[in-house]
């Protein structure tokens, strides 16, 4: 059996659950995944944070783990699913030669994090249809049948990926979530990058967060979730569950198409001479210099984004405010590194 990724929740953890607690038919399947709950003493809103929707986008997973190991909820509730597509963490994309894991040094020694595939493991869900019709009725390429971020709002009797999506919708309902945040990364040649993608019900929140981030030196693009692009978290969480929905993207060279040799260094240091060249040729949607875009900066971006979104929620909807303490500060993560905030 594959060893589960080590996550060491901080002392402020309120409850450790599994997605199958919300949707029992996931129990004992490779789609089941840990859920961490942090509840404050004071009533407030409920926020869901999801990492690992795409297990080849490490910043979302690592950011979620840092939250789990550090935060304390003061007001309201935060629910964190660090490895939303758990099956996707059990394999890597074929013919990519990607490392299966990467190390982060901490005071307590070296920690390992899995790098997985964008999609569910074919051993767990096979075969792919020629054309995938997702739960909303939209037709997509066959491989998208294993893409969690096309499977919302899920299907109780569907394929494994659709069941996971359904489980997350059940969690949203049962935890009475008000705002969902899905953490992603995108390739530097992809236009939706360094971005906050928002459901139209969250345009005010996204704009408020973007202005605060800009004032702090983080430039984020605002991208409205296209109403006709279905099955995505930022669409169906809003349309079907009726909650505010936001997705954030940081730039990750290690899953882009223009990269050179895949390596642990590329994941962590984010340096790549081909991306440097592409930047010089004006082919990228983010600046990319010899210093690359290290994982700690991408994680810092997500952390800054989360902080800004939570502060925006408090401003716009004080009754639904969620306040946390000990959120790792973005500027310190950039300087001290990820490991300084892991147990």
């Amino acid at each position: 059996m594959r060893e589960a990724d080590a996550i060491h929740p901080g002392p402020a953890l309120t409850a450790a659950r599994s997605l199958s607690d919300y949707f029992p038919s996931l129990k004992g399947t490779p789609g089941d995944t840990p859920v961490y709950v942090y509840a404050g003493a004071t009533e407030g809103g409920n926020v869901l944070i999801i990492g690992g929707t795409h297990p080849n986008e490490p910043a979302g997973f690592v950011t979620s783990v840092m939250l789990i190991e550090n935060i304390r909820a003061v007001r309201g509730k935060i629910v964190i699913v660090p490895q939303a597509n758990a099956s996707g963490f059990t394999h890597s994309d074929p013919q990519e030669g990607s490392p299966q894991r990467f190390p982060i040094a901490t005071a307590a020694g070296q920690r390992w994090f899995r790098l997985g595939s964008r999609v569910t493991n074919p051993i767990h869900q096979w075969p792919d249809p020629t054309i995938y019709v997702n739960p909303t009725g939209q037709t997509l390429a066959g491989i998208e049948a294993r893409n969690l971020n096309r499977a919302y709002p899920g299907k109780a009797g569907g394929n494994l990926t659709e069941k996971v999506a359904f489980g997350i919708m059940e969690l949203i309902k049962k935890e009475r979530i008000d705002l969902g945040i899905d953490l992603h990364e995108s390739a530097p040649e992809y236009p939706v990058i360094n971005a906050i993608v928002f459901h139209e019900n969250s345009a005010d929140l996204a704009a408020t967060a973007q202005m605060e981030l800009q004032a702090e030196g983080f430039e984020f693009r605002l991208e409205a979730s296209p109403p006709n692009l279905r099955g995505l978290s930022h669409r169906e969480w809003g349309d079907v569950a009726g909650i505010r929905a936001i997705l954030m993207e940081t730039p990750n060279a290690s899953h882009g198409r223009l990269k050179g040799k895949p390596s642990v260094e590329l994941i962590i240091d984010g340096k790549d001479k081909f991306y440097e060249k592409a930047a010089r040729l004006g082919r990228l949607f983010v600046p990319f210099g010899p210093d690359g875009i290290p994982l700690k900066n991408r994680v810092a971006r997500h952390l800054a984004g989360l902080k800004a979104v939570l502060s925006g929620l408090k401003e716009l909807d004080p009754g639904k405010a969620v306040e946390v303490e000990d959120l790792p500060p973005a500027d310190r993560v950039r300087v001290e590194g990820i490991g300084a905030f892991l147990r």
Partner: protein
Amino acid sequence: MDMHRPAEIILTILFFGLIAGSYLAAQTPPPPVFEQPLLVTSAGQSSGDAQIALQLAKRAALAATLSKTGTGKDLENQKTLVLVLGASMKGLGSAGLDTNKEKERIRELVAEAKKKNIPILAMHLGGGQRRGELTDEIINEFLPAAKMAIILKSGNQDGLFTKICKAKDIPLIEVDKSLDAVEPLKKIFKR
């Protein structure tokens, strides 16, 4: 990636050709020339930028409404039209509009504003990444109709806004960050 900038806020206010002789120093705050309520719309369907403009207006305690695809009819009872300049192909697609239809919408809106004597405040809040062929067409066509413009400095690196505003005697307020636009907004609107 992470653009470090000095913490201090540098706010530069530039005026070109404001009623001759009235303002001697470039830093002089402009008089309140606009009235509430205001209708905010994107010229080019950059819905995020329009939303930023709306939130800025709210922070300045102004009575503002956002209209995605507003027309002249929506100017009823409005005292100011805020045009947030910036084209988004995705936004146009989502709104079921093409470039020409969107320009037609703005032309009608501008004509109706003129007819009703409603002044136009132009804004550009997307910075350098919200420039490009289509956005520039919109800037070139509609910025001259404005009574004043507030823009993010990073969107004016080539001086396009400066050039048009100078030629048309439009006061131009450049800010480093969107939030820096709150104070000027407070000053240019009557309470």
